Structure formats: structure tokens, C-alpha cells
């Protein structure tokens, strides 16, 4: 049995910018992945949704500056629910100096403004080389 890579995408906190995350969602879909776009949810709900949907990847978007507080909370919530092995990635207005701390907190990769969609698709595909797994 093979299946498509499953991605749950959410926006952190009250961030209302959707352009970037919708572009990413479309690109992943066009690349043959399953994308579940849930909009704004709090970190614990995002983790729950990710488990319910059996997501391989949790994609977070934040352009508001709330990422240092909320992105690690998603990772922690996943871990505490036994989903720590899922890949969490983040995009949006993330100042470069924040990236090392986010990675320490368990975010697999951060994609800032100007990242080609193609690079994001390549990254996600590379996480699951036996896709469809």
C-alpha cells in the first residue's frame, strides 16, 4: 500500500496573512501531496489535528512575529501526544537570527520570505524518499 505525503497546514495565533501559506499549499498539492489547510488554530489544536489526520508534515505559517512563542508549542504538544516524529516546518516573517533557536526547539526547517516554492516542495519530498511511502 502506498499513499501520498500528508501535510497539515495552519497559521499560528491570530496571523491573518494567507497569501504565502496558500501558495505553499497549492505548490505541495500540485506536487501530488495531500494538503489539509486548517487556517488559524492554537498550537495544541494544530497538534491534535495533525495526529487525527495522520499527517507526515505539519506546516506552520506566521507573519505576525508570534512564531518564537507558538511554533515550539506545536512541537511540544506533538511530542506529548506521541507524535514527536512528525516533521514540523515553518514559514513566514521569521527574522534570520531566530532560526537557530527554532531548530533547537524542534522545528525541522524554516522558510522565510522569498523562498522559491520549488525549494519547499523539494525539501518535503526529500524527507520522504520512498514517496509514495
Amino acid at each position, binding site marked *: 500500500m502506498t499513499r501520498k505525503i500528508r501535510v497539515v497546514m495552519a497559521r499560528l495565533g491570530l496571523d*491573518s496573512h494567507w497569501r504565502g501559506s496558500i501558495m505553499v499549499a497549492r505548490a505541495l498539492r500540485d506536487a501530488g501531496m495531500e494538503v489539509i489547510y486548517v487556517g488559524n488554530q492554537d498550537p495544541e489544536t494544530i497538534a491534535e489535528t495533525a495526529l487525527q489526520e495522520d499527517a507526515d508534515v505539519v506546516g506552520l505559517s506566521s507573519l505576525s512575529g508570534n512564531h518564537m512563542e507558538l511554533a515550539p508549542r506545536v512541537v511540544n504538544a506533538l511530542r506529548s501526544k506521541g507524535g514527536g516524529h512528525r516533521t514540523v516546518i515553518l514559514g513566514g516573517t521569521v527574522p534570520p537570527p531566530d532560526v537557530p533557536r527554532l531548530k533547537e526547539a524542534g522545528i525541522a526547517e524554516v522558510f522565510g520570505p522569498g523562498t522559491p516554492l520549488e525549494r519547499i516542495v523539494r525539501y518535503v519530498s526529500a524527507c520522504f524518499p520512498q514517496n509514495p511511502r
Partner: protein
Amino acid sequence: MSEKSRSGEDGHNPREIIRQAFEEWRRALEREDLWSEDSTRSGVPVKPLYTPLDTASLDYLRDLGFPGSEPYVRGAYSSMYRGRSWTVRQLAGFGPPEETNRRYKLLLKEGATGINGVFDYPTLRGYDSTDPVARADVGRGGVAVDTLEDMRILFDGIPIHEVSTSLVTCNPVSNVTLQSMYFANALERGIPLEKLRGTSQNDFLMETAITTAPESLPPAHSFRLCCDAIEFCARRAPRWNPVSFTGYNYREAGCNAVQEVAFVVANAVACSEELVRRGLEVDRFAPRLSFFLSAHNDFFEEIAKYRAARRIWHRVMKERFAARDPGSLRFRFHVQTAGAALTAQQPLNNIARAAYHAMAAVLGGAQSLHVDAYDEALCTPTEQSALTALRTNQILLLETGVTRTADPLGGSYYVETLTNRLEEEILELLEEIENQGGMVRAVETGWIHRTINETAYAYQQAVESGEIPVVGLNCHRMEEEELPMDLFQVPETLSVQEKRLRKVLRERDEAQVQKALSAVEHAATSGENLMDVLMEGVTRGITIGEVSRAIKRALGTWNAPLL
């Protein structure tokens, strides 16, 4: 004059002579493979050269006229910048109100001539700072306002009877509350509403399409709240612009120039119809409808866009609404330079970009201008980047001489042709929106979301393929980049707001508050004008979160069909 008497000796008329000469010139170019078609960003074809042949059908008085007179293509006001320079209106807002108050004062001291206030995410989405879902966003992206007390502090010591204030309230739900707080504060300070000058954003697309939140009002209700504020101002605050149709924001979400103008006009038409239905005469409210547009990279297309918008608005108001007041016929607009055109890579390059954008705005006759800061793609502007942006605005105003003459590109074969072509495209799209059932319906069905999405995705792909060059991003990149500046740090806000809110809650009269809130809920259901109710309610210490919850209890919530 007959064609004959204008003819040259060989029997050809002057236009024919130009045509022949032009064809010859063009063939020479073609022989070297140098004649090719290109197009603007919104897809209007562009030739390598324009001549009198392209504008031959223009009838000067009918199609262009004079600034300040019909059809207003050449400018909204007769003397344009000689009579009154554009308002230097730089955005500002972050942290608790006392911090933003300081930034307003700095900008005014440094020569800004208007205030442009942005609110933080919780305020815009109608949550109190202390709400669990709001806490991580408090003070971010704008200033935190929970109650009237915050509004008092925000404008403390600012001469709001003289300075015009733009309140970037974004969507109608937050607008009814924030505008009421601003007005209530003015009244407390002894300033009658009739004297207040300013603008609130109040665009229902901001709630339902352009930005979205977990809980937005259903489109028809959001639209109604927008109209409530317009109606209230027509009655009580005649110098206040109660809506600014946010073409800028549509554009930033991914629209092109044609869609930007078509959507603002369609939105304004929908509002006008509703207000007429409510019994207001068009000339009572239309002079106070204002617009907010972007200035993006395609220099001449942007200029032509503003000119086309003026011609279209004049026609719509005159033919469709039989407006007669010149104020109703003139399209007045604020411009912000395109944030989405600015890059996180080599951020100082953004100073040059924003300066070009700003130049397009004023060559197109903007009434008011914000120039973006170079750290746009990275953070809220620092004091230094905000000042540089302010100075860019002032350099344009004072050093370049662009203010000397109105509509300096009027009569340019190219710009006039582009203006005509954009007008055609915009009118066509307006018709399509009518076919979709009008603006409110087009939002409800998701047609608007799909349309913006498609354009945004195509744009993204064109940048990635290199078809649209972006310096520092897809060409002239630098692999190892060091950030050449400090980034803004949001000052501590939550604890400040928490403390102040607690004090307000402690001191207010709970019975009055409950009365005010049920009045809000009741008005929301009954259709009574919400502004009337809130003007009183905010003085009782009700919070923006309480108001939003009351309204949503009454009217329900909606999820935008984004994908």
C-alpha cells in the same frame, strides 16, 4: 475643420502622413527583429513605441478635461499639488498605546502631516489582549487597544482637531468599536464630531477575503456593519471618510492592477446601492467615500491605473447614481507603496524600490502617501527605517519638482493609451462581477478568493521562473548575506494591557456594561445602526472583545473558502 482643408498638398491628411512615416520606421525595426510586443504586469499589451496615431480618437474635453473637472482623469482637484500637497501619512503602530503615541509624535515633529494608525492583530480581530488566543500577538503589527482608555492614551496630546487621522481598522467589526472609541474620545476632549477629519478603513473584504481569522462575520453582515458606519458619519461626522476601499490590500493579497480597481469600484457600488436603499441621497455620502490603492513595480501601468480609476468612478457615479456634487464624482485616494514588492534579501534595495513606487503614486495624482520602510519584509519599522521612509516621502515632495504641474504625463501617447486600455479591462471585469451577482455575492461564493488566488499563484510562478525579475532574489543574488541593520523588538505589551484592562474592569459599572452589551446584541439582530449604540457603549468601559462576541453571538460566524 474638414478633412480636406487640413490635407497636405499631395492630398494626404497629416495623420496619414504620420502613419506612413511610422510604418516605415517600424519596418526598419522589424527588419532587425527589434519590434516585438510585450505586456504590462496585468497583461495589457505594450508596443515599443506610441505615437499620435494611438491617441487620435481622444476627445480632449470629453475624455480628459481639466484637473478638478469632469471626467477627472487629470486629477481630483483643480490646482492639485500647487494648491495642496499630498498628505505625508506614514503608518505607525506597535506595542501598548503609550509607545505608539510617542511614535506618532515623533513623526509629526519630523514633518508628517497626517496620522496613519495601525492596530495589533487581537484588536483587529476583536479580541481583548488577555484572551488566551490573543496573548502571543498582543502589540504585534500595530498598537493594542482594548477599551476607550487605551484610545485616550493613544491620542493624548495630539491635536486631533487639526491633524487628520487615518484609523487602519481594517474590517467592519473592529471598525464600529474603534471608530466609536475615537469619536467618544474626541467628544470628551470637547471636539465636536463635525470638526473631525480622518478616515477609517472599514472594508468588508478585509474581514471575509483579504485577511481571515478563525471567526469572521458572514459577508452580508460584515457588509452591513460597513454601511452602518458610513450612514452614521453621513449624519454626524460629515468631514470623516467612513470607509476606505482597500484596493491596496487586495493587491497585496495577489490581485493585479485591473482587479485592484475593479474590486474597489464594485465594492463602492455595492455600498452606494445599500445606502441609497436606506434612504440616503447619493450626494450626502458619496463625497466621503475614499479609496486606498497600491503603487507596485510597473511604473507606467500604475500611473495609468490611477487615471483610469478616476474616469471610471466619475462615470459610475454620474450615470448609475445620478450624482451631481463634484465631491461624489471625484475619486480621491491614499497610496501605500507595495509591501509585497519588497524583499528580505538585500533589504536596503527596498529604499530605491519604494521611492519609484512613491513617484508613480504622485505622478498619478494621489491625495495622500505612505512610503514603506526598507525593513518591510523583516519586521515592524524601526525608528531609523521609519524616518528614512518619511524622508523619502519628503524628498519626493520638496526636491524633485513633481508638484509643479498637474498630471504631468497627461497627453503622453503611451500613458493615454494605457489609461484607455486599463479602463476597458476594468470595465469588463466590473461586468463580470455584476454577473457574479455583485460584490457581496462574489465573496459569499468564493469567486473573489479564487480570482485573487489564481493571480497570486501565477505571479509567484512568474517570479520563480525568472520571467519577473526581482533584484537580489532571482537575479543579482548574494549567497552569503549579513543583515545590515538591527531589527525591531516589540516592547513589552501584554502585562501593560493586562494591568490597565483589569483597572477598567474593576472600576466600571457592571449593570451599565450589561445594558450596553445587550443593546449591541439587540441592534445587531434588529438592524438598528450599531454605531449609534456603540458611541454610548464604549463610554461605559466595554471592551472590544465583549463587543465582537456580542455581535458574533447575534450574527454568527463564517469561514472564508480560501483553498
